[in-house]
């Protein structure tokens, strides 16, 4: 097991290097630091001197890959590539274009993101499994048919409309929840409840449909027939036998997204004004702060790869038939 984890860990390294190469190419080769400076300074203030100053202040004035003016090892280390890209591997994110510490911001903004993401995940799992179980219980009736059509309708509505509609209904008409904002500590629940509900409803359609097919696949198997032959009630068959076996794909599907919960939800957070990593990313994109975008790309990739690793491990934990090789 340990050997497997270590080996998988080494597999991750070339992937991270690849991600790093792609982002480096996108941010520094396709689009040179001069372009960035011009964009940040705005059309009015572009002079060669101003561009030089902007680049110098942020360390973009060095050569890309190889610095001929330096001696020894710093020929390689005193370059944009080393400073801006290689340092990411040590999770040194450096400073944003507006001078703030990215690492510090990420550590601070992680918590509001999690305060939304974890309840959404847990509540969503509960609601989704319940709905799909009910559909399977009423299979081949008009209740199921209507239910599935309703789920397809839920799927066909853009998240943006759920958010706008929810804010209007609960925030503006009923005054049940604040429209946006955030507060640290235990009072946060007042601000998180609406985004969580909307997040759950937004994922209900596709989630329930997927779980329903999983349950239906299980229900045709021999052990289910045996369980029925023993005289178990349908409820017991579904919850004791079918649910347990269908939990394997459900759990692994959850595990793969666990690490990326840190990244937060882009639009939910920005609509509700929650100071998490999702809104951090959107603000960075809108203000074209490439240092932050680069850091988030790297962080996102690391978490994704971590998710893949956790999935593989969890497979072996919940399903003894799977052997690691």
């Amino acid at each position, binding site marked *: 097991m340990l050997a497997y984890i270590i080996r998988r860990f080494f597999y991750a390294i*070339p*992937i991270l290097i*690849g*991600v790093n190469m*792609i*982002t480096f190419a*996108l*941010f520094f080769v*396709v*689009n040179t630091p001069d*372009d960035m400076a011009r*964009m940040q300074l705005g059309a009015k203030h572009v002079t060669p001197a101003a561009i030089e100053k902007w680049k110098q202040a942020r360390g973009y004035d060095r050569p890309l890959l190889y610095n001929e003016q330096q001696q020894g090892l710093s020929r390689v280390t005193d370059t944009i590539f080393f400073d801006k890209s290689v340092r990411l591997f040590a999770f040194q994110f450096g400073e944003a274009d507006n001078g703030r510490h990215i690492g510090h911001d990420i550590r601070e903004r992680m918590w509001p993101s999690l305060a939304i993401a974890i309840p959404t995940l847990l509540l969503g799992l509960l609601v989704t499994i319940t709905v799909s179980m009910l559909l399977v219980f009423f299979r081949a009736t008009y209740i199921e048919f209507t239910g599935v059509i309703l789920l*397809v*309708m839920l*799927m*066909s*509505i*853009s*998240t*943006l*409309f759920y958010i*706008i509609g929810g*804010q*209007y209904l609960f925030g503006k008409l009923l005054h049940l929840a604040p429209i946006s904002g955030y507060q640290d500590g235990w009072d946060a629940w007042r601000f998180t409840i609406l985004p969580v509900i909307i997040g759950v409803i937004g994922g209900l359609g596709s989630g329930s449909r997927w779980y329903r097919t999983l349950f239906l696949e299980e229900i045709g198997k021999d052990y289910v027939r045996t369980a029925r032959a023993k005289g178990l009630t349908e409820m017991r068959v579904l919850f004791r036998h079918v649910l347990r076996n269908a939990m394997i794909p459900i759990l692994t599907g959850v595990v793969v997204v666990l690490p*990326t919960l840190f*990244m937060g939800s*882009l*639009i939910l957070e920005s609509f509700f004004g929650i100071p998490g990593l999702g809104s951090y*990313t*959107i603000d960075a*994109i*809108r203000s*074209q702060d*490439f240092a932050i*975008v680069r850091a*988030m*790309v790297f962080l*996102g*990739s690391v978490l*994704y*790869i971590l998710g*893949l690793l956790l999935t593989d491990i969890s497979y072996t934990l919940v399903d003894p038939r799977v052997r690691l090789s």
Partner: protein
Amino acid sequence: MIKPVFLWTDMLIFVLVAVVIGFVFYARHHEHLRAPWRQVFRSRIGVASLLVLSVYVLIALLDSVHFRLPLETQTSGQQVQQSQQQDYYSVEVLSLLDLALGSLRDQSEKTYSAPLATELFARETVELTDGGQQRIYPRLQYGGAHLENPSTDRGADLLQRSVVAVMIGLLVWLVLMTPLLWLLARQRGLTLASMLDNILHQREAVPWFIVLLVTALLLVLIMLVAWLAPYYHLFGTDKVGQDVLYQALKSVRTALAIGTLTTLIMLPFAVLLGILAGYFRGWIDDVIQYLYTTLNSIPGVLLIAAAVLMLQVYIDSHPALFATDAERADMRLLFLCMILGITSWTGLCRLLRGETMKVREVEYIQAATAFGVRSSRIISRHILPNVMHIVLISVVLDFSGLVLAEAVLSYVGVGVDPSMHSWGNMINSARLEMAREPMVWWALVAAFVFMFVLVLAANLFSDVVRDAFDPRLRKG
């Protein structure tokens, strides 16, 4: 003379249409392809959603033929000279849809007005003839302008026009459907009456009853719009007074372009790499797996954002490349399709790799290998046709997701060009109007209705297609 404008996405859309037509002709002669399609056409949901989708496709195709109108020459004296030199064209790029909606495009009001309103949404100070001033809701320039006394006449006028529209819609429906029924009856050697009886009692394999019903609904709806829209703003007007219905209709093409062109662009890569990885295995498989895991691990929105920002810098620094705004916006749309393709091909590639691995172990392919058939031939003759159903299913499944993604990306600010009509842009600008009191809701409702119907139809259709083509789900 008008000057045709060939936008990149237009050409790709027509390539796609050609591919689809070619596929239809190919499938007609192959029973294994006809059978699943027959199942699609026999499903009620299948035909209903297909009819709704075809209306959207028609709008998008009309909106994909672009041209520039010539500018009128100023004076008769210069005319001779000018025609010898060259013609001058308007910088505005129009499409056939613009011509069809002529009045909708031009009839701009001053600012917001509610759906079917005859007055502006906000009070304005107006100079009276006797010199005094008054705060009133001014009449609209176009909306309900034909009415003498809007407050009393509007309801009756609306009702009258709607009734006429419904009648005409039903008339057109009768004119269109009678020959169809007659043809069907003749094919089966029945009288028209007994054919109708069969359809009403659903004794036909194809659910003609649903076809008739949905066509009637769609025609009535189209006629209602056609009869009311020239006189009223059906979905109101936006901040600069532009008709919201016009914007929603123009957005159809953007949504369909993103939903289909993205797939068209990524398909060759996904199919080729997926099959190569599954067929050759070994180091080729390793390289391709590495490629898609790496691309997959970059958060999609961030990759798109980075790429679109880069493109924006490029466009801004090379303004001379694009003759008109439309061409510039089109370039961005195409680029967005490409980058969405890059982020979305990995799923299909992985599926194809797995399926190819299974298929290549089948006996007839091993026999072909033993006979010394070249790999390229095995792939094209045996493997490709056997994994095609996966490609088709994932193309149809991806469509609705891409349409929804456009709205989110436009919200983030990395979607289509802000000057391009799209539902995402409509939502984005309407979002700020939510805070107004009383609320300006119609732009949101219009975007919601158009998007919801399209995505719902696409979702339902894709379910039917998947049920028909997936061998695991196929009955019997």
